[in-house]
């Protein structure tokens, strides 16, 4: 009898964790945030350019990214003659897996995430590196001339922004004396790290724009120069997945900025009840997430594309030294 109860409790716990990982506050939640980000980005861009943006699907066109996703999934999937079959077909879900895995390390309903590890920040950094590598691999696999030019651009741009991105992410870890995202969030109970390391936050946002291939760093997907960039040869379901991954990465990187610099879901708590506390944490998290998202898509709408040599020079000559200066200041002051 006792064994049965223990077994049922264990099964319930496993089931709860599966739901948390796949639905809320894990993958599905972040996918929806990504869709909303996509819609908000298009709306903001349209407003800034004197247009209306999406209006047809759902109220205010909010379901347009979802409609686009399903439309692409139902379209014909063409496998180019010169493409590497295996990577071309299996690559998109693996590309999607990188940010999807990252979402389970983000604390949303409280100081702890679904999965906590003492050095999950390094795991997140590895995910970011893998994501760029996967994009390069997909571009190469498709074999088209535009894709290959774009892959070269992508990899060169990656060498520019990756170091400042890492340094910017290490700074909060140094401030918190922890490589765990939960530890970093807990260390921001009194003061957010954006107040102690503002330069790192700015560097992170700039590097995130490059990682997301958003203007002014949309060099690997520059439509007016190299058609669709490394995605040129993709159609139907793989293209839908790649676009979904980009939306998810958008939400994931914004969530990472919230976690590392804006105190994660922490904020003033007025309730003793744990459910109400979690609800309040969730609201704080979402408000901060949209603030960072809005910052990113305002910048991407306001700025024009730079050239690849200008981007790499900017990262190596300005952004990397800035990130190192911020790191040096923190080490000198011993925070």
């Amino acid at each position, binding site marked *: 009898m006792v064994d049965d109860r223990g077994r049922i409790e264990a099964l319930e716990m496993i089931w709860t964790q599966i739901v948390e990982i796949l639905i809320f506050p894990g*993958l599905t939640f972040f996918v929806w945030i990504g869709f909303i980000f996509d819609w908000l980005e298009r709306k903001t861009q349209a407003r800034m350019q004197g247009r209306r943006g999406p209006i047809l699907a759902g109220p205010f066109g909010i379901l347009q990214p979802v409609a686009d996703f399903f439309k692409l999934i139902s379209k014909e999937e063409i496998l180019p003659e010169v493409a590497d079959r295996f990577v071309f077909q299996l690559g998109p879900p693996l590309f999607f897996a990188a940010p999807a895995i990252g979402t389970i390390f983000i604390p949303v309903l409280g100081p702890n995430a679904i999965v906590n590890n003492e050095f999950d920040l390094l795991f997140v950094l590895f995910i970011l590196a*893998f994501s760029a590598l996967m994009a390069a691999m997909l571009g190469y696999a498709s074999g088209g*001339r*535009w894709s290959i030019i774009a892959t070269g651009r992508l990899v060169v741009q990656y060498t520019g922004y990756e170091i400042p991105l890492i340094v910017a992410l290490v700074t909060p870890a140094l401030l918190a004396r922890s490589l765990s995202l939960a530890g970093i969030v807990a260390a921001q109970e009194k003061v957010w790290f954006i107040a102690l390391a503002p330069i790192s936050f700015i560097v992170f946002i700039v590097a995130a724009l490059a990682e997301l291939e958003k203007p002014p760093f949309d060099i690997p997907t520059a439509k007016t120069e190299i058609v669709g960039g490394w995605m*040129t040869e993709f159609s*139907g379901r793989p293209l839908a997945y790649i676009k979904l991954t980009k939306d998810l990465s958008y939400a994931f990187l914004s969530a990472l900025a919230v976690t590392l610099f804006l105190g994660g879901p922490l904020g003033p708590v007025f309730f003793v009840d744990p459910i109400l506390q979690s609800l309040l944490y969730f609201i704080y998290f979402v408000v901060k997430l949209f603030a960072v998202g809005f910052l990113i898509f305002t910048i991407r709408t306001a700025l024009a594309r730079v050239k690849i040599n200008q981007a790499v020079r900017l990262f190596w000559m300005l952004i990397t030294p800035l990130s190192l200066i911020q790191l040096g200041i923190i080490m000198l002051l011993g925070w």
Partner: protein
Amino acid sequence: MVIAGPLLIIIADIFIYQIAGRFGKRTSGKGAKYQPFTGGEEDVAPRGLYRSELFVFAALFMVVEAFALLLAGSFASPTNFYPLLFLAGGGGVVLIVTWWLMIVGGLKL
């Protein structure tokens, strides 16, 4: 859950991708339709090879960086299990991917 969580996501992801594949038509073959996009030009380019030295260095940079990250994990870990797991898993994946990039892309070191 550190290992089971990511594995669960990968399995669910591939499963949904396969299910989604049933909605649309999948075609492959030979002919103009299956040639890479040429921007309206008539001559179809052969499979492109990227031999830029900068690209080689960039690809190597990726490998070194990923290994540095993996090694950095070992300084924070009280046991050898996770650093070794990360080194074997992560490093292996990065190496295979980069090797593939170099072979398929026709890179020469």
